[in-house]
């Protein structure tokens, strides 16, 4: 299996993983599971970047993956802190109850 051919398999896999992440965000109501689905989508994009980077022999894509991971760590920390702050008042993590800005 040569690299240019296998690249399409990796891209197809990351497309499937991304769509599963999208479905997780759309279907689930638990806000922590939604945050995990966002992480899954970030991982799918990372897989795209790494496979393209390796196929073309260019290191820039993997450096972008490095930065994406750092931003994902920051996003997870701040997102979970917000979840804890809201949970203290509402005592739930149901996304349908998080309507602080409504009305």
């Amino acid at each position, binding site marked *: 299996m*040569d690299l240019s051919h296998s690249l399409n398999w990796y891209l197809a896999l990351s497309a499937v993983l991304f769509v599963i992440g999208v479905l997780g965000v759309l279907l689930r109501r638990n806000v922590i599971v939604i945050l995990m689905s966002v*992480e899954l989508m970030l991982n799918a994009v990372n897989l795209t970047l790494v496979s393209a980077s390796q*196929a073309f022999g260019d290191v820039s894509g*993997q450096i972008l993956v490095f930065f994406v*991971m750092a931003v994902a760590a920051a996003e997870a920390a701040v997102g979970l802190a917000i979840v804890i702050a809201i949970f203290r008042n509402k005592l739930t993590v149901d996304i349908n109850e998080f309507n602080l800005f409504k009305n």
Partner: protein
Amino acid sequence: MIAPFLFFILAIGAVAAALGMIIARNPVNSALLLVLNLFCIAGLYLTLNAQFIAVIQVLVYAGAIMVLFLFVIMLLNLAEMPRPQQFRWSYALALVLGALVLAQAVYVIAEGFNVIPAAASPEQAAATGTAKAIAMDLFTTYMLPFEMIGILLLVATIGAVMLAKRRFI
């Protein structure tokens, strides 16, 4: 050649773990299945000869970020949410939207099948994934973004502590 076989095993594992993460009712099971998914993707990085990213994936994602998730899930002591009783139209809409996104992605990949330029040789690909090759670019061309990401992580840490500490909502 072992690589295609390994790819399909890891790909099936990653997709199955991701689907399980979406379906599992208990958030702890979701988190553990996501860890399994992250390990499968790290294995896929190894099949691509990207050793550095594979190690970072296990250390940062499966190690740090998922431990943070599990810590918050267990801190909040969540009960399983009740299943929705009646059929909701938003579910059908979500499935249709997901199918559309998948169709679009598959269409783009299929269109790009012949557009992809000449691929790198396996030796070149093996040299690209090492920590040395990444560090050479990261600490020269991408020095400023690297330092900015450090500041971003500091700000995120302070912000997370402030958000979780105060009662303001």
